[in-house]
């Protein structure tokens, strides 16, 4: 279930990891500086000293230094308002990379064949697409702004973090976008999603947590899922380092962005977790190779769909079906 550790890439990679100060293992800083009760979604205080201590014990001194510089109150808890502002800033920087790598269009190119496959199979509308852990809602807002999916599609972004959802709503309102954002567990929304999607969240779920995540897709009315994440390869950590060095300003964004690529799962691990957790779905990885060649890509996507819609989905992929692995 765990991706191969970076040191299995050989001595050359080990030297580069050290030279570039690339962290070798998790957690990410953003995983630790915000704590939420998953049942009530109430914000929990986070003791700065404990987080710093955890990173020191993991020998991740860069992360410890970044957390040390974050403001805290008299009780030693990280200042929640300052953390909120930081996370909104970081998400804005992350959006810049998503835009550069055409992520909105990339999502639309895969989501449209899924939705068209469902329409062709006479699935009742509206087709509800829920973005899990949407952050400031870039993908949902992009799809809405570009009218990329058709009028029968309802787009909802869900995230635990109220500050990110407030920002997503503010941005959507500023551009008169009709999408919705909820502070919620995406799997506990009043109406279930027809399609669940996400970007960059899978690697946050380690081991059994990943299987549990997929298990939550087994709901009435849910027909498919597609989850984008970094494509694990020997080059990924260095490519990620380069882009985060060139594009990001916040030290937290640089640290977590590079670590995300290090922690990204292999395609086989994702498939195993999806097929174990969500056995009702057939699944495959989309876009691991570029133009059928062994050129690593920045992102790939784990796609799952109920078996009765598989053929319609593949038929609607057109010439992009070469990028899809075996759906089983």
């Amino acid at each position, binding site marked *: 279930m765990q991706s191969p550790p970076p040191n299995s890439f050989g001595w050359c990679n080990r030297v580069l990891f050290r030279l570039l100060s690339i962290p070798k293992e998790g957690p990410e800083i953003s995983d630790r500086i915000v704590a939420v009760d998953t049942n009530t979604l109430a914000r929990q205080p986070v003791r700065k000293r404990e987080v710093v201590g955890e990173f020191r014990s993991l020998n991740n001194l860069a992360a410890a230094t970044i957390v040390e510089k974050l403001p805290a109150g008299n009780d030693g808890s990280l200042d929640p308002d300052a953390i909120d502002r930081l996370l909104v800033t970081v998400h804005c920087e992350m959006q810049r990379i998503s835009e550069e790598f055409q992520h909105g269009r990339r999502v639309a190119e895969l989501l449209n064949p899924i939705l068209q496959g469902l329409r062709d199979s006479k699935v009742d509308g509206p087709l509800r697409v829920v973005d899990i852990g949407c952050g*400031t809602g870039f993908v949902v807002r992009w799809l809405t702004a570009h009218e990329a999916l058709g009028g029968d599609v309802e787009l909802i972004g869900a995230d635990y973090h109220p500050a990110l959802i407030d920002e997503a709503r503010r941005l959507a309102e500023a551009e008169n976008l009709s999408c919705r954002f909820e502070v919620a567990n995406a799997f506990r929304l009043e109406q279930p999603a027809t399609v669940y999607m996400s970007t960059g969240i899978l690697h946050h779920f380690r081991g059994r947590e990943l299987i549990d995540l997929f298990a939550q897709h087994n709901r009435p009315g849910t027909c498919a899922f597609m989850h984008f994440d970094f494509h694990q390869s020997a080059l990924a950590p260095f*490519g990620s380092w380069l882009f985060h060095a060139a*594009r990001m300003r916040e030290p937290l964004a640089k640290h977590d962005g590079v670590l995300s690529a290090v922690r990204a799962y292999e395609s086989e691990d994702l498939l195993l977790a999806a097929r174990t957790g969500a056995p009702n779905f057939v699944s495959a990885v989309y876009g691991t190779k570029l133009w059928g060649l062994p050129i690593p890509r920045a992102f790939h996507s784990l796609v799952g769909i109920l078996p009765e819609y598989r053929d319609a989905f593949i038929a609607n992929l057109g010439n992009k079906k070469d990028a899809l692995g075996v759906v089983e």
Partner: protein
Amino acid sequence: MIAIGLWLLATMDASFAGYREAAGRNALIDKRRYYLRAMIRGAVLGQVAVVIAALVILSLLLITGNPQSLIWDLEKAGSRMLVVYVPFAMMILLAFCVRSIPSVDIRSITSTLIFGPFTLIRPVLAVIGLVYGVLAAPRIATVVLALIVMTMMLSLEKALSLFRA
């Protein structure tokens, strides 16, 4: 011609600096006007840098005993700088041409292979171009001018950020 070439490159570089400085600070979806304004801001600040460089050259010409010799040396240095900067600029422009193809993969590749790495190596290349230029005519005047131009090239984005704040 050499001066015009360097001015064009400086203006282009400054407008891209304006874009980079603005990127990642605005999370709206439609940012065409925002980026256009940012690039104009960068280009305008680039003109300020060009004027400063021109004033430095003028001062050097006024205090040197042999202005014609200095002009020749500056031309030699400038033509060498173009040898370094023009291929870099051409690669960027070529990447923009490729990026106009409406393909997610092709556009991503231009970022992976050109825009990302070239952003990182830009400061190094700026220094290489100036050093290569100065080596064609090593004298105090060219070194002073190169140091001033280098400082302005490398601090343009930072200066734009200061104006934003």
